[in-house]
């Protein structure tokens, strides 16, 4: 058995490596977007790809998101696998018509004759001090659109494995990259990247018995921190990282909630009409008789994303999560 040398690596490096490996393995994979070529992306996630594979494979496009995604549709119709970068969450909005009216539906409208294997990379979420339009969490819009897979990694290994799976998928995947985790490091073997992670499976990041925190993307490390802090109160929290919002892994989530009897959904995007409402409803429908308390949500406020100087008040933090856990009526146990 060979020993694997683990080194610290960032999520950004793992994403770059995923695209590089996918491009090397499959000549139909094309990376495109504003600034992805010479600059290597504003977050350097596409760094080196244009140099290694040429500008025809990693293309700096005109600054036009609808055009970027719209031309990617045509490229996919001709047999290519475009990986499109939207640079920042709110910059993707001009491309929504292409995404919703064409990308998500082409397979369905052609009765399977014309699938579109497009990966739309959307750096999303706050906590990096970005000015307006640079910190939105738009996952609810994507989740509400049939035909799209919606995926978001929280670890370095998942960033690699899920992006490889997204690029290999014959369906369009909205790949949400938590910006504030780009520079988070993990022990990872960059020489032998982990296997491709199938889309649609949640994972238990931390086992516990008292309650389940259901979360994804940038809120995963926050929930893990909250679970550590909760030990002081005598609460043993389980943390489930969804990884995939569409399809949704009811099995893993419900198995956890049935064990713990209590659940809190945690995410950055607003609560009203947000992913937490859907998740809470699913859990309630499936686990009602196991629940000791209502499923609670800890979400961002229902406000446009606030200015950076106030964002710490908006983003779900450890205290707000612990407060929700406290509201799960522990005295009922005694």
């Amino acid at each position: 058995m060979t020993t694997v040398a683990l080194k610290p690596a960032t999520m950004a490096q793992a994403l770059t490596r995923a695209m590089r490996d996918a491009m090397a393995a499959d000549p139909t994979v094309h990376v495109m977007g504003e600034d992805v070529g010479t600059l290597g992306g504003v977050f350097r996630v596409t760094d080196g790809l244009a140099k290694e594979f040429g500008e025809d494979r990693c293309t700096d496009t005109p600054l036009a998101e609808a055009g970027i995604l719209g031309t990617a549709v045509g490229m996919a119709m001709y047999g290519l696998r475009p990986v499109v970068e939207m640079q920042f969450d709110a910059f993707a909005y001009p491309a929504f018509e292409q995404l919703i009216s064409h990308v998500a539906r082409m397979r369905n409208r052609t009765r399977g004759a014309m699938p579109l294997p497009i990966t739309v990379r959307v750096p999303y979420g706050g906590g990096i001090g970005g000015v307006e339009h640079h910190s939105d969490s738009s996952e609810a819009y994507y989740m509400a659109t049939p035909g799209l897979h919606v995926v978001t990694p929280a670890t370095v290994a998942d960033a690699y494995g899920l992006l490889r799976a997204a690029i290999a998928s014959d369906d369009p995947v909205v790949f949400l990259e938590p910006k504030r985790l780009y520079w988070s490091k993990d022990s990872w073997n960059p020489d032998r990247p982990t296997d491709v992670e199938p889309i649609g499976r949640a994972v238990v990041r931390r086992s516990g018995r008292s309650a389940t925190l259901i979360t994804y993307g940038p809120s995963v490390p926050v929930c893990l921190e909250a679970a550590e802090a909760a030990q002081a109160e005598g609460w043993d929290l389980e943390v489930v990282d969804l990884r995939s919002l569409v399809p949704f892994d009811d099995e893993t989530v419900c198995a956890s909630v049935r064990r713990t009897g209590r659940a809190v959904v945690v995410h950055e995007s607003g609560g009203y009409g947000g992913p937490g409402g859907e998740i809470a409803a699913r859990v309630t429908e499936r686990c009602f008789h196991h629940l000791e308390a209502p499923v609670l949500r800890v979400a961002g406020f229902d406000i446009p994303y606030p200015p950076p100087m106030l964002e710490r008040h908006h983003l779900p933090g450890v205290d707000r999560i612990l407060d929700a856990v406290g509201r799960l009526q522990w005295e009922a146990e005694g």
Partner: protein
Amino acid sequence: MTVMEQRGAYRPSPPPAWQPRTDPAPLLPDAEPYRVLGTETAAKADPGLLRRLYAELVRGRRYNTQATALTKQGRLAVYPSSTGQEACEVAAALVLEDRDWLFPSYRDTLAAVARGLDPVQALTLLRGDWHTGYDPREHRVAPLCTPLATQLPHAVGLAHAARLKGDDVVALAMVGDGGSSEGDFHEALNFAAVWQAPVVFLVQNNGFAISVPLAKQTAAPSLAHKAVGYGMPGRLVDGNDAAAVHEVLAAAVRRAREGGGPTLVEAITYRVEAHTNADDATRYRGDAEVETWRQHDPIALLEHELTTRGLLDDDAIQAARDAAETMAADLRERMNQDPELDPMDLFAHVYAEPTPQLREQQAQLRAELAAEQEGAH
């Protein structure tokens, strides 16, 4: 000396990177739409091509009237007629090689049929059957596009991809005058010009976007002029002159195939019928205007040219009409049969593999259908 005078003395040199890329004059459209029929140029046109265009125009007109009749019988939910615009529809289809791609808008059913699509399959979207009744790859016809101008960037991407693969493929994308106001129109033309993609954009300027006339749609001298700003040639053509539309499109396709990049062609035509069968055109235009355009009918123009030159006799005209009638009878008969749809198909093509959630919903519908069957017995 005042501050303003001091400023006036300042003569900045242009920034170093700036220089005009081309002389815009070759990109500008002619002042008048290009015409062939009724001019000396017509003598140089290929008689075989003109006869073929004629037969297709006659068939196309019949297709339009038959499809409109089917809306009255409730067999089609809606039909946006291209009567009066058949020259554009037919020329767009005939100008392409088999390996090329056509990107039609919702009004361009006729172009798709002229390219070889089964007339019934071309109508599934409009009768409420499955959205696209054909495999786009079979005839290289993209799905009929209902949102405006969003198919244009698809055409650019496909043409670009083909060129990257080394394939000798041209994409022709059709859009209306209203569609030229959409953002995707701009983005597609810009991408096409920057990438020098082998694409031809055909704008059928039929005078109205539903009810809004061109004067309220744009302040540009012509829609063809818009090309200049992107760095591609703009061409203006009489959209009712089938020979002229074919010639202009053929030149644009040739240019694209030879690596010359995209062209924007504006064909000036007129939508003789209402926007769709659901529209009341009398609210926004007068009979006199429509009548003027009826006098400039694409079939009559070509028929006159061909008969005057002795290239078409009564027998040939009758043969074209008979062929059109046969097509219409077949279309009528097949459209009058109820399509058989499988409700289970609702879940079959959302993803390559249905998600667990869709499997659950599929099971629910299957149970509902079984209960229905049970109840019927």
